[in-house]
């Protein structure tokens, strides 16, 4: 959340904001209230309150020593603010966000204009001064195992509004599929790049993890997504419970506790011992069966009973393949 949110803004935080707001407005004489509020990421009411505050601030009490604000109509003019007509230097955390972010983007092949990125970083290092060195202690990574080709093709399709043909592996169903996709955006999340687009096979918005794309081809077809294509909210991660979801209760031993962090779960309660009990919603029982098998007994379905029986059955069927050979070591 940038700008003043639901938490009351402290006096010093507001000062820091005003020390940027004044030069920002002074360099845009006549900007409308709506445009300024949008550019500064505050509400019009907050902007008016800020203007009331800076009006008559200055380095003395004579009229020519005070900031002038003209905002009677819809247009804002800020004058006589020469003492603070440059913003304060970047703070350490501010410098970290941009410099660490730029260095991370530079490592992603095929994503950005490398010349602009390098020159921006060089200028920023100069502008940041002594804090530039400290920012190097924090290093972020946006690369993944997907080939640069898939990323570059998706990026080009997005820029040129062209349809893509994908051969794509769906791991939860363990099958390879062919589909045409109108690209909407490229998102990196938790160490992977995803293409979000309108899938003509599913007739839905879908996310495709680029390292699961086996082949990608740009088609000479307009790839503007249909009007009903809406991007998903990815704040909680890429896992999306579909419609017709079923509530499943799991018990997670400490070795499987990561499941509660990794997938959106409705409720977490401390169960017996160090175990957690969580409820998650999914219509995808194939995915769930696979997850429970992977957890190797560290996780168990408590309800519904039919699903628990299905998972137990799958495990026993798989074990049968080993019982005919040398008796494997049991514990």
């Amino acid at each position, binding site marked *: 959340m940038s700008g003043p949110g639901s938490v009351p803004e402290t006096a010093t935080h507001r000062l820091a904001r005003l020390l940027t707001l004044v030069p920002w407005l002074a360099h845009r004489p006549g900007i409308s209230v709506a445009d300024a509020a949008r550019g500064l990421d505050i509400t019009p009411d907050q902007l008016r309150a800020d203007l009331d505050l800076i009006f008559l601030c200055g*380095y003395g009490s004579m009229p020519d020593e005070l900031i002038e604000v003209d905002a009677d109509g819809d247009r804002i003019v800020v004058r006589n603010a020469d003492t603070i007509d440059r913003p304060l230097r970047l703070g350490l955390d501010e410098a970290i966000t941009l410099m660490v972010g730029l260095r991370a983007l530079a490592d992603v092949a095929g994503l*950005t204009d490398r010349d602009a990125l390098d020159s921006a970083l060089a200028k920023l290092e100069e502008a940041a001064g002594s804090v530039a060195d400290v920012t190097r202690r924090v290093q972020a990574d946006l690369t993944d195992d997907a080939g640069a080709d898939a990323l570059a093709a998706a990026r080009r399709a997005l820029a040129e509004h062209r349809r893509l043909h994908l051969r794509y592996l769906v791991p939860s169903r363990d099958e390879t599929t062919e589909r045409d996709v109108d690209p909407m955006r490229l998102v990196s999340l938790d160490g992977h790049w995803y293409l979000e687009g309108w899938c003509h096979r599913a007739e839905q918005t879908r996310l495709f993890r680029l390292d699961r794309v086996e082949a990608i081809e740009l088609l000479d077809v307009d790839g503007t997504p249909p009007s009903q294509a809406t991007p998903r909210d990815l704040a909680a991660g890429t896992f999306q419970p579909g419609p017709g979801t079923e509530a499943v209760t799991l018990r997670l031993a400490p070795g499987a506790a990561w499941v509660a962090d990794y997938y959106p779960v409705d409720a977490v309660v401390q169960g017996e011992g160090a175990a957690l009990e969580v409820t998650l919603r999914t219509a995808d029982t194939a995915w769930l069966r696979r997850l429970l098998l992977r957890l190797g007994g560290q996780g168990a379905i408590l309800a519904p009973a039919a699903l628990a029986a299905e998972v137990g059955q799958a495990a026993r069927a798989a074990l*049968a393949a080993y019982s005919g050979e040398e008796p494997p070591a049991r514990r």
Partner: protein
Amino acid sequence: MSAVPGPAAKTERLLNLVMCLLYTRRPLPKARLRQLVPQYAAATSDESFDRMFERDKDELRELGIPLVIEDINGVWDDDTGYRIHRREYALPDVSFTREELAVLGLAGRAWAQGSLAGEAAAAIRKLQADGIERDEDSLVGIEPRLRTSEPGFDHVRRAVTTSTPLTFDYRRPGGDTVTRRVQPWGMASWHGRWYLTAYDLDREDQRVFRLSRISGPVRTSGRPGSYAVPADHDARAVVAASVADSTEATHTAVLRVRQGRGNALRLRAHAAHDVDGGWTRLQLDYGDVDALADEVTGFGADVVVEEPPELVDGVVRRLTGVAAAHGGDR
């Protein structure tokens, strides 16, 4: 100047103070500042003015405003005064092209989902203060995201950038928790997770910690700047090497995979031969036997391990555990 109550009045006072200290060509003694800043002039006693001024000075410095004390040559009663050098205060006058601002905007947006979102937006606004708007179109639809959702992220980051010793409880891969006392050296994200690199005071060696395994609060256990970070320390290289050590593909597995199934394994196999009864035999390299056992177990009866025995054991042990947890052992 208007008498605004509460925090707004304080902001107004601080803004007046900053402007006075930037405008002056000579250091200003306290007594002069009390005349220039109306909210100081209104202070009812010397004591309350002194307290207010001392606190204001500290808070401006915390914001990164370079307020300095300098000697005055006997013009006023005080022999020291205060000022802010514009050269130290102001963002240097660098100008960015639209293309540069576009990639800077992208770098800033990468943090938009986390605890540094405000800092990233404020930084971009500072760079755009002189009126250049960024070229939005060229990078539309690209959304890098750096999550900072690990509970200790902000505390660890501050410790890393200020060289402050930390103590925390750490969950080891085996499941038990141990207390660690460290001197943080750096932090790096790698494949979507944040790691801390630090000197471990008890084990007297460099160690890597995954932030998501820190349990409970992170405690400061020493003064900022109380140790030196090695000049050649490269957190990302250390993290990458440490993660690679546990995953480098040094072993080969032989798996039997049912027709049309086990596709993620087929993608990584370096040899595949069809065998009788609708199965394919795959050879694939792996580093971490537990990670491969987890993955193979997920395929259930569609994938059967033939070699090596330790992978067979791992898969059988997991399947037995799953069967026991779902309807009893056989």
